[in-house]
């Protein structure tokens, strides 16, 4: 879900360049996976994690897997914080993160909290379905802190942002070229084009780390 806006930009650029039509379907990573397993007519799967593409390859449903973006986790807040002050700042406050059991960004957020020694007993963590909803919770004023993807920052207009690159590894978002894409030139072309510099630039502009970098 975190990549949708970027994917749309990419698709437009690709269509302009090659004339191929790209149709984007989106949903949560887990749900898209379940659909692929049940035979959904998708050619390329841009996952928000590395586990599911790997599993698809194992199961023989994907022919190729590759990291297409490195997600960057950031902590947004109402007032500036840093590693030293965050522990005190969150005390008694509401902190939103994606549900770590279903969302990679949630898992990353838990890791970050451990590194920052944030004790979940001192504040109120709320877990919502995905980073999109995390941002919503923050934007609507229901949370004081939120762990979101750097790609979401432009849309959020958050007062202040703390980069967590030092505390948590980038989130590897893998893509899978699905079985079904065999013989589909357009799918193949887009798959290849995703690895191009042009695509990498767009991905980087959106706030992700490019896999090559």
């Amino acid at each position, binding site marked *: *879900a975190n990549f*949708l*806006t970027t994917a749309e930009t990419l698709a437009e650029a690709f269509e302009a360049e090659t004339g191929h039509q790209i*149709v*984007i*379907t*989106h*949903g949560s990573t887990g*749900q898209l996976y*379940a*659909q692929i397993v*049940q*035979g*959904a*007519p*998708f050619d390329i799967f841009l996952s928000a994690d590395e586990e599911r593409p790997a599993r698809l390859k194992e199961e023989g449903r994907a022919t190729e897997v590759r990291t297409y973006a490195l997600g960057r986790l950031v902590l947004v807040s109402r007032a500036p914080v840093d590693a030293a002050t965050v522990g005190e700042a969150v005390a008694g406050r509401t902190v939103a993160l994606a549900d770590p059991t279903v969302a990679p960004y949630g898992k990353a957020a838990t890791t970050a909290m451990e590194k920052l020694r944030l004790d979940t007993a001192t504040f109120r963590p709320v877990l919502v379905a*995905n980073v*999109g*909803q995390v*941002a*919503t919770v923050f*934007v609507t004023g229901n949370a004081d802190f939120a762990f979101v993807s750097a790609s*979401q920052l432009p*849309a*959020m207009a958050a007062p202040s942002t703390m980069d967590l690159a030092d505390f948590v590894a980038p989130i590897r978002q893998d893509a899978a070229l699905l079985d079904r894409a065999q013989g589909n030139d357009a799918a193949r072309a887009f798959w290849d084009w995703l690895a191009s510099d042009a695509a990498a630039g767009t991905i980087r502009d959106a706030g992700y780390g490019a896999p090559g970098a």
Partner: protein
Amino acid sequence: MSVWPAVFLTLQLAAVTTVILLIIALPFAWWLATTRARSRPLFEAITALPLVLPPTVLGFYLLILMAPSAPLGGLWVRLTGDTLAFSFPGLVLASVIYSFPFAVQPLQTAFASVPRPVLDAARTLGASPRDAFFSVSMPLARRGLITAAVLSFAHTVGEFGVILMVGGNIPGKTRVISIEVFSAVETLDYRTAHILSFWLLALSLIVLVLVYAFNRRGGAGLG
């Protein structure tokens, strides 16, 4: 991206679902309302079950059911050459199952309160049970029928979890408005979300007011 394909698809899905639901639910609700079978509570309970499962989970099971390897899904592929999941018919099937209780229950309540003597009168005046059903039970159950139709229609318009799962969110084919709004919210595009929601609400409100106002004018009730 234009929102019209989604609007059109939504209305089409809701309309088709409502029509199919009423066709199935009418005889079934009537049976429930009039039967003396001891198994009735069981059927009533089963009717309410689709409500209990979270939509995504219901969607998950429907996906399994519709997979080409499953009996139903396989049959569909053999008949139409297309997979049932991720197709419009698949969406319709999912919506029908999901909204079934909303169609059946108001109808059953309404049918149960049609006075027996009036039905007897219809029979002696030459109406077969079928004829009496259409000429007496149905008009007298009108309020229930409208409630059933409105709940089914609105629920399908707002439906989302199941559709997201079964439909595959394919633009122009299975991407309905609710998913557009959902996407807008998820991608923090609140402006679009507000606009879409506003139109969704405004259009629904107009349709519903018209339905209810018309219903009201249409002659005296039972009271």
